C-alpha cells in the first residue's frame, strides 16, 4: 500500500512538511563584527546548528613575521586586535623580551601599564557599545564611542596614531609622554567615572537588555576551560583567572604593587570595591549578561589601575630608556608568553635560530578560541540570540584570522 502511494505521481504530500533552511549570516552582515560568516541551520526561528567560517581577513601575519626582525613585526601586531593595539604590542614585546631576558626600566614598566589599561578601557567600550547595537539599541554605541574618542585623542598625543599605535615596542616604548599628558588623562578619568552609571542604566540594568541576555548562551565553567576560552568570556563563567595576576613572572612583574581585584563572581558576588548594580534574578553564571557585566567591571578596574600607574609613573625619576635596535640579535631558543589582552589571553610564541629575524612566529589569539565555542552555545537558540551570543564573546576578526 505504502508503495502504491509513493509511486502515485498525483499524490504529492499528505501533510505539511517543514524543511530546515540554511541561512548565511555574513560575511556581509551588520552584526558579525567584521567578516565572520555564520552558516545557520534553522527551523523557522529556531537555530539548530551554527557553523562559523573564518579566514576572510587572513593576512598571513605569521608568515610575514618570519621575514622581519622582531621590532619590525610590531606594526603587524597592531593589526590583529586593532581595537586594543597597545595590548597586542605589549604581548609581542614581552614575548621577545622574555626570550632575550631583557628588562625594561621601571618608568617604562609603569607607562606600559598605564597605556595598556587605557587601551583596555577603549576596547571594552567598543565591545559594550557594539553589543548594544547587536541587541538593537543604537545610542549606547555612540555614547561609548564618544568616550573612546577621548582615549584615542590621548593616544594620538602620545604616539601620533589613533588606531595602530606601535607605541609599546621591544625594549620599552617608542617615546615618552608629552608634557601635560598626565593631567589630561586624569581629567578624562574624572569626567568618565560618572558616565559608567549611564551605561549601567542604558544597558546593564535595562529590563529589555536583561531579558535578551540573561540565561542566554549559558557556558559552564567546564565548557569554558575545555574550549580554551579566556578573558571576560572565561571569567563570565566564574573561572577565577587573570593573567595579570596568574601569568608568568615577566608579565605579573609589571603589575607588582598594583592593587586590583579580578572581576569574577566568587562565592556568589562580584568584587565590592565599587558600587555596581546588582545581578538580576534571571541571570545565570556564564550567560551573556555575566560576560557583559565582567567587561563593565573591568572598565572600572582599569580606571583604578590607570590612576595607580599615573602616580607611580610620575614618581619615577629618569627616562623610559631606549628601545632595542631593530637588528638586535635574539638568542636561539623559543619562548611563549600569554598576556591578558582585553579580549582574552593573547599568546605569542617565538622560535629563534639566533638571528634578529624569528624563525617562527605564532600568535595564539584569544578570540579564535572564544569563537570556537559559539556553535556549542548557539545550539537550539533563536535567530535573534545568535548576535546576542556572538556579540557577548566580543570577537575581533583581525585577531582571529591574523
Amino acid at each position, binding site marked *: 500500500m505504502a508503495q502504491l502511494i509513493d509511486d502515485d505521481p498525483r499524490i504529492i504530500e499528505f501533510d505539511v512538511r517543514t524543511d530546515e*533552511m540554511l*541561512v*548565511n549570516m555574513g560575511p556581509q*552582515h*551588520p*552584526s558579525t563584527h567584521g567578516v565572520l560568516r555564520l552558516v545557520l541551520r534553522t527551523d*523557522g*526561528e529556531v537555530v539548530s546548528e551554527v557553523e562559523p567560517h573564518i579566514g576572510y581577513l587572513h593576512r598571513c601575519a605569521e608568515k610575514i613575521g618570519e621575514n622581519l626582525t622582531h621590532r619590525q613585526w610590531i606594526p603587524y601586531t597592531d593589526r590583529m586586535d586593532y581595537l586594543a593595539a597597545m595590548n597586542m604590542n605589549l604581548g609581542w614585546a614581552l614575548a621577545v623580551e622574555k626570550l632575550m631576558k631583557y628588562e625594561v626600566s621601571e618608568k617604562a614598566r609603569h607607562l606600559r601599564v598605564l597605556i595598556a589599561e587605557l587601551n583596555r578601557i577603549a576596547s571594552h567600550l567598543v565591545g559594550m557599545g557594539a553589543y*548594544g*547595537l*547587536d*541587541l*538593537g*539599541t*543604537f*545610542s549606547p554605541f*555612540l*555614547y561609548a564611542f*564618544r568616550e573612546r574618542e577621548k582615549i584615542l585623542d590621548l593616544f594620538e598625543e602620545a604616539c601620533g596614531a589613533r588606531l595602530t599605535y606601535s607605541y609599546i615596542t621591544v625594549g620599552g616604548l617608542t617615546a615618552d609622554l608629552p608634557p601635560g599628558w598626565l593631567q589630561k588623562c586624569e581629567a578624562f578619568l574624572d569626567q568618565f567615572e560618572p558616565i559608567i552609571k549611564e551605561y549601567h542604566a*542604558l*544597558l546593564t540594568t*535595562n529590563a*529589555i*537588555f536583561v*531579558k*535578551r541576555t540573561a540565561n542566554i548562551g549559558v557556558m559552564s565553567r567546564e565548557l569554558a576551560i575545555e574550549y580554551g576560552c579566556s578573558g571576560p568570556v572565561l571569567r563570565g563563567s566564574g573561572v577565577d583567572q587573570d593573567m595579570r595576576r596568574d601569568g608568568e613572572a615577566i608579565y605579573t612583574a609589571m603589575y607588582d604593587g598594583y592593587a586590583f581585584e579580578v572581576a569574577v563572581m566568587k562565592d556568589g558576588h562580584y568584587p565590592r570595591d565599587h558600587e555596581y548594580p546588582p545581578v538580576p534574578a534571571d541571570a545565570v553564571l556564564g550567560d551573556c549578561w555575566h560576560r557583559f557585566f565582567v567587561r563593565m567591571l573591568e572598565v572600572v578596574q582599569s580606571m583604578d589601575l590607570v590612576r595607580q600607574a599615573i602616580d607611580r609613573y610620575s614618581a619615577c625619576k629618569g627616562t623610559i630608556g631606549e628601545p632595542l635596535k631593530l637588528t638586535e640579535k635574539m638568542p636561539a631558543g623559543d619562548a611563549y608568553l600569554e598576556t591578558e589582552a582585553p579580549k582574552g589571553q593573547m599568546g605569542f610564541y617565538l622560535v629563534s635560530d639566533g638571528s634578529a629575524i624569528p624563525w617562527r612566529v605564532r600568535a595564539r589569539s584569544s578570540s579564535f578560541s572564544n569563537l570556537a565555542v559559539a556553535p556549542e552555545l548557539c545550539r537550539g537558540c*533563536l*535567530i*535573534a*540570540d*545568535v*548576535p546576542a551570543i556572538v556579540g557577548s564573546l566580543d570577537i575581533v576578526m583581525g585577531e582571529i584570522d591574523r
Partner: protein
Amino acid sequence: MAEFLITTVGLSEWLAWTVTAVIAAVLVLNVIAGGALVFIWAERKIAGRIQDRLGPTRTGGRFGWLQSLADGLKLLAKEDLMPEGADGMLFRLAPYVSFCASFCAFIALPFAFDFIGCRLNVGVFFVVAVLGLEVFGVILAGYASASKWSLFGAMREAAQVVSYEVPLGMCVVVPVMLAGSMDMVTIAEKQAGWFTNWYLFHDPFTFVIFWVYVTCAVASVNRAPFDLAEAESELVAGFHTEYSGLRWSYFFMAEYGSMFLVSAMAAVLFMGGWNGPIPVASLLGLSEGTGDTANYFVRLLGMFNLLGKATLGVLVMMWVRWTLPRLRIDQVMTTCLKYCTPIAAAMFAGAMLWQLFLPGGLVPGLDRPAGEIREGWLEGPGGRGAAAPAASDEKVAQVISSQVNP
C-alpha cells in the same frame, strides 16, 4: 465644497464631487508625504540629540531642514534593483500596497471638527481595519524578494501584527463604548472642554488601557522595541533588504504615515482629539455663533491641536526607539498574548462596569465639559456641521445632551 462648486461655480454634479475628492485626496496625501519628510528630518535630529551628536546641519541652511528632501532626491536617482530570483510583479506591487493602506486610513481621520476626508460612522473600525492591511505589503515584499532574510522579516511581521491587532482592537473598543459611537468625530467631541474630560482621565481603567494602546500601537507599526521585521542586527534589513531607491522610500513613508496615524488615533480616542487640554476657543469666547471666520479659526486651532498631539506621540516613539534595545520575537509574542491581551480585556470589563455603576465619575461634575457645550455646533445654524450625515448627528446630539442634562 461640492455644493459650493455646484451652486456657485456651476459645475456639473459628478465633476464637482470629483474635484472635491481630488482636493481632499491631494491634501491628505501631502499630509503623509510632507509629514514623512518632516518626521524623517525630526527623527534624525532627535536621534542625533539623544546620541550626543548634531544630526544633519548643512543641507538647506541652519538646521539641515532640507535633509530629507535631499535624501528623497538621492533615492529617486538611485538604481532600481530587483534580485534575479524575485517575483517581479509582487516585488513591484508590495511598496504600493503598504503605502496605500497607510494612506487610505487617513481618509477617515478627523483633523478638526469637520476637517476630515470622509466622515464615516464606523471611522474607528475603518482606520484599524485599513491599517491592518499594511502588513500585506510587508508580507508580499518578504515573499517576493527571494531572500531568506526578507522572508524571516515578513513572517515575523505577519505573526506580530496579527497578534497585536487583538489587544489593539480591545483598546480601541473602550473609547468607542464610552462615546457610544464609532464615529471618530463624535468620540472626540465627547471629550470637549478641559483635559479632565479626556477619556485618558475618565477612569482608572481607561488610563491603564491608554498605555496598553500605546504599546500595541508601537508594535503594530513596527517601531522599536518591536521592530522585529527590520531588526537590522539580526535580519540585515528584514523585509526591505532587497529594496532600494524609491520603492524603499515608499516603505519608509508608509512607516512614518502609520506612526502618525496611530498617534493621531491615540489623540482622538484618548486625548480629546482637537479639543485641547485647555478649551482656548471657548475661553476666548469663540463659538459657532460668532460667525464663519471665527468658526474657521476655531477649527484651524483644533487642527493644530490635534497635529501637535499626534506629533508628540510620534516624538515619543522616536525617543523610545533610540533608547531601548529590541525584544526577541518570542518575547514580543509573550508581551502581546500574556500581558497586553489579558490586561486589555480586564480593563475593558472594568471600564464597562465603571460606566455602569459610576457613570458620573467619582467626583460628580469633574467630567462635565467646563466650557460651552457644542450641542449647537452639531445641529449647526446653517454651519458646516450640517454637511455631516444627519442621522448620526441627531444621535450624537442626543447622546451629548443626555450626558449634559441627565
